[in-house]
């Protein structure tokens, strides 16, 4: 049932490599977007602050409230058509990869922003009051007291988000990016062994996600020891 592995293992390896690369980029840029927007959100005074906050709300609501596949199609088919451009590879990086990574990162950024919002809200109000009563400014209190605690609060949820990204990244196979899912489809078409191939692909995804969970747990423990 699994003898196809001997012939096709390079496909699985390549696909896995692509999935890992895509997930790493998504995690990096998604977290970056989430952190930047979370910091930006603290300024909710004045017209500019209020407008930016409103825009952030719309961004989060849209990307959490619509299917990732539709978002991907909008980036892959919709926007190029609207702007009348043809997507081309940049150097040796395929266009599918660039668009897939952008769509996943923007989608993940919306979730990370929400994770950070919850993490900041979970820091007791007394911490801000203690900082302010000492004469620290709001910015100083955020930087030295609130945010370090918020980061610790968000680690479990952030780790979970990383796991979700690894799994959800399989959706990019529909625009033809040769990730693990896409290559599994190709092996299935060549071998007609849908059960065996998808079980192997599932096992690889499982190894990736459980490995990621373990890393996050280790990292959390390391941080717990510091306090």
């Amino acid at each position, binding site marked *: 049932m699994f003898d196809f592995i001997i012939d096709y293992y390079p496909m699985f390896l390549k696909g896995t490599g692509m999935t890992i690369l895509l997930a790493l980029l998504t995690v990096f840029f998604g977290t970056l977007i989430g952190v930047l927007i979370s910091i930006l959100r603290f300024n909710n005074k004045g017209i500019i602050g209020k407008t930016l906050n409103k825009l952030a709300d719309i961004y989060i609501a849209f990307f959490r409230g619509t299917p990732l596949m539709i978002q991907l199609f909008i980036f892959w088919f919709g926007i190029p058509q609207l702007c009348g451009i043809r997507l081309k590879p940049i150097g040796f990086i395929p266009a599918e990869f660039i668009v897939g990574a952008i769509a996943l990162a923007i989608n993940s950024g919306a979730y990370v922003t929400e994770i950070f919002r919850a993490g900041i809200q979970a820091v007791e109000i007394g911490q801000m009051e203690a900082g302010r*009563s000492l*004469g*620290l400014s709001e910015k100083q209190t955020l930087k030295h007291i609130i945010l370090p605690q918020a980061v610790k609060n968000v680690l479990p949820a952030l780790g979970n988000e990383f796991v979700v990204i690894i799994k959800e990244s399989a959706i990019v196979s529909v625009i033809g990016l040769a990730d693990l899912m896409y290559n599994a489809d190709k092996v299935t078409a060549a071998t007609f062994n849908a059960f065996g191939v998808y079980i192997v692909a599932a096992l690889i995804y499982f190894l990736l996600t459980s490995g990621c969970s373990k890393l996050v747990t280790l990292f959390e423990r390391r941080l717990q020891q510091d306090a």
Partner: protein
Amino acid sequence: MLNVKKLSKYFHGKQVLHEIDLEIKEGEIVTIIGPSGSGKSTLLRCLNLLEIPESGDVFFEGINLLDAKTNLNEIREQIGMVFQSFNLFPNKTVGENITLALKLLKKMNDSQANEIAMNLLTRVGLADKFNMYPSKLSGGQKQRVAIARSLALNPKVMLFDEPTSALDPEMVTEVLDVMKELGEAGMTMVIVTHEMGFARQVASRAIFVDGGKILEDTTPDQLFTHPSHQRTKEFLAKVL
């Protein structure tokens, strides 16, 4: 030193402080007592604008805190505050809790700030806890660190918001002792408390607040032995 004029505060449309007038002079130790929900903590929190009153004024050494031109952070450096729930920074060691404001606001280097922190910790009897995290301390120890932290910037007045209410009974004394010593050293203090014995022993002035109004403002002896107000009598009958 602190001067409150016609101060009113509302929460969700409900008035919790009614045009309060109050003056705190240098060297005074004022206790504010009263039933839960009477507005005593809110009144205290208005003194450094942790609560922003809807109307009225708060003056510190003649400076109006509610004036938009006032640098509130500079004023707050001079007004120490101790909270019921300690509010120590859990991500920092005991020493760092105390040195943070010194480094950020007074631009001190490590050795200067650490020396001050160590002196203060010695004063509250916790010099050996310098490198520990707050989570390793008992409630009484936490509150003593919190007192040391708010003393670091050498404030002119200290506000205490029910400093012993979250403590196990056997730890109340160690905190009250530190506060007593502070008072003996001449610190101006405003203390919201349920510790009637302490209020009577240590305070130079006692205020009874009920329904968002100051009903009595007199010496502790007078308040506890000859309360003039029926509400005060009822309250004291319940707590003494």
